[in-house]
């Protein structure tokens, strides 16, 4: 089914690769460990203007990739993960802006991660891969942005873990970020969120095929798909789930029900789980969920979130969704409050929706309109070089 936004598309796109931090010039991670060489998979849409001031960096969430818009092949079943918002005339308007999206380090869609070959051993890193943090992901992207010849980004934008990276960008590289769009995110994940991540990791660890992270082609499919099923529950609201599936049965008549018959919601989760295994690495899932758990801007700045933003120069757009219980509105309000205290320009909107955390990925006019208007004003302000 084509969504209202899919008609306007960036078309056929190609993933590119950028390699840096060749030994002995490895990138030093937050943990102090060194990682290199590092490859980042990335895609770009639109054209960088001559002033080089129209670049927007898009940050993906836990299971995302560099493929944010368009299709790799004309017969691809699905477009990139944020195709509803990236394209000609869309919120991230590729007629006006140069849009970049890269796969995070620790990921498994082309960037260096636990499934990559460790140059020192010639085998996959697996659990020898160093712990990476949100800050490390951002530091790696900094090299890519530099490589593309961009001194200052018009905006850094993302939802969920992508929002964490966007916030981190504005804090780590204050001079390079003109504006920051943080959607359905938090300055630190809640205990409940960490709990769900841990259950997902345990599902992977308890799959015998995981084998301490050393699996070859015999991937821990059961564990990873169970992890994904758990994740999917947290992305939907109770109401959305009810409206989508109700108490419908997949097939069976009442008489033929047994312990194996499935409610529609069950087959949906099973399907999501199986589909996920085809494209995602179990160890990556473990590393990235850990990076999300450990992210804590407040802790990084002496326990006061407002201090984190004191040096930030960006203007902010913060968006939450009323039925998101994984990254609830209150975590966005906490960010907004801290931004206000540190005197930043901030827009905040709590969008009424039944779609839960998933809402940031689904096409919605209100989200499109607000991102679009924000970028328009921010881009116009650049020209005028004006403070608000």
């Amino acid at each position: 089914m084509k969504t209202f936004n899919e008609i306007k598309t960036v078309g056929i796109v190609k993933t590119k690769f950028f390699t840096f931090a060749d030994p002995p010039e490895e990138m030093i991670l937050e943990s102090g460990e060194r990682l290199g060489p590092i490859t980042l998979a990335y895609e770009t849409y639109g054209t960088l203007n001559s002033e080089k001031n129209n670049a927007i960096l898009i940050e993906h969430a836990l299971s995302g990739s560099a493929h944010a818009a368009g299709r790799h092949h004309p017969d691809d079943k699905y477009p990139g993960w944020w195709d509803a918002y990236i394209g000609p005339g869309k919120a991230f308007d590729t007629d006006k802006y140069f849009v970049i999206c890269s796969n995070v380090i620790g990921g498994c869609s082309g960037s260096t991660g636990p499934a990559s070959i460790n140059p020192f051993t010639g085998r996959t890193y697996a659990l020898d891969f160093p712990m990476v943090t949100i800050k490390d992901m951002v530091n790696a992207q900094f090299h890519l942005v530099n490589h593309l010849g961009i001194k200052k980004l018009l905006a850094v934008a993302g939802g969920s873990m992508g929002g964490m990276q966007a916030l981190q960008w504005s804090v780590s590289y204050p001079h390079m970020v003109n504006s920051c769009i943080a959607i359905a995110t938090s300055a630190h994940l809640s205990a409940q969120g960490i709990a769900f991540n841990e259950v997902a990791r345990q599902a992977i660890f308890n799959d015998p095929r995981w084998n301490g992270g050393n699996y070859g082609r015999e991937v821990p499919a059961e564990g990873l798909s169970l992890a994904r099923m758990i994740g999917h529950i947290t992305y939907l609201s109770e109401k959305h789930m009810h409206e989508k599936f109700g108490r419908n049965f997949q097939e069976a008549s009442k008489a033929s029900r047994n312990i194996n018959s499935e409610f529609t919601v069950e087959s949906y989760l099973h399907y999501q789980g199986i589909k996920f295994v085809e494209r995602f690495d179990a160890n990556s899932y473990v590393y990235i969920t850990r990076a999300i758990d450990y992210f804590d801007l407040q802790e990084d700045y002496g326990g006061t979130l407002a201090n984190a933003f004191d040096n930030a120069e960006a203007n902010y757009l913060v968006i939450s969704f009323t039925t998101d219980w994984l990254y609830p509105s209150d975590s966005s309000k906490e960010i907004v409050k801290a931004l206000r205290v540190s005197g930043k320009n901030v827009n905040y909107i709590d969008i009424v929706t039944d779609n839960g955390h998933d809402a940031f990925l689904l096409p919605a006019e209100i989200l499109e309109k607000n991102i679009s208007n924000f970028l328009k004003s921010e881009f116009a302000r650049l020209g005028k070089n004006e403070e608000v």
Partner: protein
Amino acid sequence: MIGYDLVIEEIPEKTKVLDLGCGDGVLLEMLQESKKVKGYGVEISEEGVSLCMEKGLYCYQADIDEGLTDYRKNSFDYVILNQTIQNTKRPDYVIKEVLRIGKKVIISFPNFGYFQTRLHLLCRGTMPVNDLLPYQWYDSPNIHLLTIKDMKIMAKEFNFKILKEWHFNLGQDKKSKITRVNPNLFAQYGFFVICQ
């Protein structure tokens, strides 16, 4: 648009302004254009915030009964409470907070002491419904109605200064006409500039 002309007249150029209950942001936009102010808005509705962003204003969605404590003292040259205070749950708290975060506060509201309103209650014995107060008692957002005199009493009790009083009536042309003679009886709207 009620009292916008007076607010614009009062606010000096290039000041930092917070508009509480800024609605669609028209007042802030006018202030930015005519007075080059640094304007910020707070608005409770999603639609309002969206309309503000469309105008390129900075605005965040919040309930002003809750969202003011975190601002530092004297964060703004002016805080505007235009036709808003009577909608708040805790006007006493809101007024204390705006006096803390703003050097000056503009506060304007429908005057419940206006003679037509008084007459309505006296003669009909029902809650007044008129141009100033266009709601039935059961669907009215005006949960803390007050008179001009009430505000003056509050100033004494809460120990804040009244710098200016421009109580007014709305003319046919929607322009504000300042009422000097017994405003508590003859002005449709109260208009105060106050400070701590």
